[in-house]
């Protein structure tokens, strides 16, 4: 049973790639859960106005889909990630339609804890892989690392 969800916590985001504009911000509400119970991580993603990133499922296998990687934790098992439906984006000057995300969207990650998990904070290391474009320029693919904090009460 979830005891409560704390104040929004911003985890940001040390990219090691060359200087590209920061087009993406991640916010994750702090989660408090009782040992042995399940919950959902709701990861809020904000894309800078004018930009989009490729969706989790792309309609062309040459494109780089947005994917999320979460490191394993002994007491926490994450389930199937739920990405939102993609929007269609028409490339200016061509007939191609891309599946993308823009604006604000949420990625949901269900998880369960073991009964033996220790109380206190558990930090899950995570990486988001994405490739961003605006209507005329594409940026190189990027991976950003961040942390997800799960408090076990």
């Amino acid at each position, binding site marked *: 049973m979830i005891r409560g969800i704390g104040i929004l916590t911003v985890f940001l985001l040390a990219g090691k790639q060359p200087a590209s504009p920061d087009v993406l911000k991640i916010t994750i509400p702090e989660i408090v859960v009782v040992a042995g119970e399940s919950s959902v991580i709701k990861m809020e993603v904000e894309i800078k106005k004018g930009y989009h990133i490729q969706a989790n499922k792309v309609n062309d296998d040459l494109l780089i889909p947005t994917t999320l990687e979460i490191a394993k934790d002994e007491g926490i098992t994450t389930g199937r990630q739920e990405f939102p439906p993609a929007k269609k984006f028409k490339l200016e000057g061509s007939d*191609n339609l891309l599946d993308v995300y823009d604006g604000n969207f949420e990625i949901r990650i269900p998880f369960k804890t073991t009964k033996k998990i220790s109380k206190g904070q558990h930090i899950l290391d995570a990486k988001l892989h994405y490739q961003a474009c605006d209507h005329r320029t594409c940026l190189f693919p990027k991976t950003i690392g961040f942390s997800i904090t799960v408090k076990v009460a």
Partner: protein
Amino acid sequence: MKSIVKSLVLIAYLDLSLAAGAQQDQPMIGQMAPSFTLKAVDGKTYSSDQLRGKYVVIHFAATWCPFCNAEAPYLQELYKSYRDKGVEVFIVDVKEDKALVEKSFARFNFSFPVLLDEDGSISTKYAPEGVQPDLARHEVPLASNLIIDKEGKIRFYSLLNTISFDAKLTKLKEKLDSLLNSK
């Protein structure tokens, strides 16, 4: 006081107009194209010095770049239409390895060379100064098209932040026709 304010407004307006004008102009026109020697997916090495006396079309690409892939079939068509007129076409793939490029571009059946700028150094040389300063320099020319003339000078440069994307290469072909007809 009013006249000072008017002057400042005028200066600001002129600055904005000039900036807007600069954005519309193609960069590096008339400059010598930066030299390159690059290996291609076909295993051969191509050098810009060997291309003197020919018109050369270069497209900077990456396999994941949606703009580049939208343009790819039209670039192949262009090559087929212009190769007998002494026009060479190259893709310069930026910062990807041969295996990936070879596999990914197989679908396009390019009959012109795809060059590998694996460290991005050539792409960096083609990044015009002051354009998109918030990008890594090797990122700037991505998805752009250039025409280099017989003397090695840049005659067309469709940098994406300055000119609308033109997958069908209409503007490039107009310029190429004009250059070929004026010789």
